[in-house]
């Protein structure tokens, strides 16, 4: 135990040290009895005491890396678990779409819209939601297809127009834009008979790499039935009114009936036009097709990204999220932490000064 300075003071003040050590200062018997009577501490509350006995500074050195490792492990697990999500989502979406398309016939909602989001960019080899041939439906598709270069853009645009015509459809509009240094783009609005839409979409998808797709099926059955009932009522009224006008009627009644008949005929004309428009809508699907030479942003590659890459990306997102939460907490709590630290150090300094003052008293 004796250190160098111990040896020094023991040599320098040898006699004084000897005298000091020979001072009678043993504890009196009363104190000894008092201490002996304490006995041995019981194990009551042992767990709590042991927890308190842990060296916290050293524990932090272990706990902090352990927390970081835990977070990284959680991120990796999250990434691995979610890496097969696109495939699952696609399968779920497919099932959902097919069920929705099949159920549309029993729908009580007059106009039903089913939108399938762009989060998934599946290859078009997957089955498409098919229109229900027993019901009037408005089928709309929006597709973004990537092609190799500007030459391909023109070729594919022409091919798309041919595909549509081959199915008895027509091209409602074409807009192609190309500029030097900019990605080229061609926007086509195509109308294809509903009965051929599925085949047409598969062929159109084959013209490049599908990077985005939306599908919408809106049920028109109830709208058509309402229009038909309205037309029938108008026709009945017109027939009755025409019949009534053939007989003898008071002048004012005749005049009123003639006006009503005129109005009913105008209504009938409008209702018939609306009905034809609805039927046209139901007969022809609308395909908005965009060809682009630009690479997909956050891109779905042809055939999808690798599982490992997705796992890493998910893990990275998880860690970034955790980091953002920690940063937020740090920013929010930093004033409190600074205050707490200042209070702690202030109190410590005060206690130290107070101790010095108390012990300096002669």
């Amino acid at each position, binding site marked *: *135990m004796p250190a160098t*300075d111990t040896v020094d003071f023991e040599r320098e003040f040898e006699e004084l040290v000897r005298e000091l050590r020979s*001072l009678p200062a043993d504890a009196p018997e009363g104190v000894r009895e008092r201490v002996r009577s304490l006995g041995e501490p019981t194990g009551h509350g042992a767990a709590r005491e042991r927890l308190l006995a842990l060296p916290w500074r050293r524990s932090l050195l272990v706990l902090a890396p352990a927390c970081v490792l835990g977070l990284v492990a959680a991120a990796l697990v999250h990434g691995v678990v979610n890496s097969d999500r696109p495939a699952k989502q696609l399968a779920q979406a497919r099932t959902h779409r097919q069920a929705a398309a099949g159920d549309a016939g029993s729908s009580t909602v007059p106009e039903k819209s089913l939108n399938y989001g762009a989060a998934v960019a599946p290859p078009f080899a997957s089955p498409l939601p098919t229109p229900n041939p027993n019901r009037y439906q408005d089928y709309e598709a929006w597709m973004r297809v990537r092609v190799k270069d500007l030459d391909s853009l023109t070729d594919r645009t022409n091919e798309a127009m041919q595909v549509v015509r081959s199915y008895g459809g027509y091209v409602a509009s074409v807009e192609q834009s190309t500029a030097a240094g900019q990605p080229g783009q061609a926007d086509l609005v195509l109308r294809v008979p509903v009965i051929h839409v599925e085949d047409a979409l598969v062929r159109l998808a084959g013209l490049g790499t599908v990077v985005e797709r939306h599908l919408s099926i809106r049920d028109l059955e109830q709208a058509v039935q309402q229009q038909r009932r309205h037309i029938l009522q108008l026709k009945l009224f017109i027939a009755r009114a025409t019949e009534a006008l053939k007989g003898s009627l008071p002048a004012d009644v005749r005049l009123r009936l003639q006006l009503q008949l005129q109005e009913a005929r105008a209504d009938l004309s409008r209702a018939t036009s609306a009905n034809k428009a609805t039927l046209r809508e139901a007969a022809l699907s609308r395909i908005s097709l965009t060809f682009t030479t630009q690479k997909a942003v956050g891109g779905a590659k042809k055939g999808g990204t690798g599982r490992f890459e997705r796992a890493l990306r998910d893990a990275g997102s998880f860690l970034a999220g955790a980091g953002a939460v920690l940063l937020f907490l740090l920013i929010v709590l930093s004033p409190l932490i600074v205050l707490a630290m200042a209070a702690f150090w202030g109190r410590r300094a005060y206690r130290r000064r107070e101790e*010095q003052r*108390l012990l300096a008293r002669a």
Partner: protein
Amino acid sequence: MKAVNAVTSSWPGLGVDRPSFSAVAESELDAVHRYLLLLTGNRAVAEDLTGETFERAFRSWRRFDPRRGTARVWLCRIARSTALDHFRSEERRRRREERYTRGVRESEDSDLGSGVLETALALLSPAEREVVALRVLLEIDGPTTARVLGISATACSTRLSRALQRLEEMMSDARH
């Protein structure tokens, strides 16, 4: 320094063997009393504080970790804290009393003993007496003493040197 070689108990949570409280109390009682006697300079107060120190140690015995220091040092920390609490309460009491009895100052009389050395010790400040107690009487090494006192090792060494110097001067003055 007496070695604590009495009954030991294992500490399964930390995988450490350590002595029993009663064994530590038996072996360190005189050392703690000696330290408190020098620190307070009052026999009655030292006895009282010794008892209180061991009661506190008894309550927090589970927190004692032999890997972080000897039982003597751990007990000295508790004793010091107990003594400082006593000094604080004494100061508060004195201030209270001074408010009503102005000019009459009562101080805790030193009764270390009537010998020359005891008288000289009584003239030192508690801070000086405690460093002498820890370093000379209890034979605790410099760095550990500095940690107990909450000062640097250099300050501790200086304080000890000054205290011994003063003591020696007072002793030689008294002898001549």
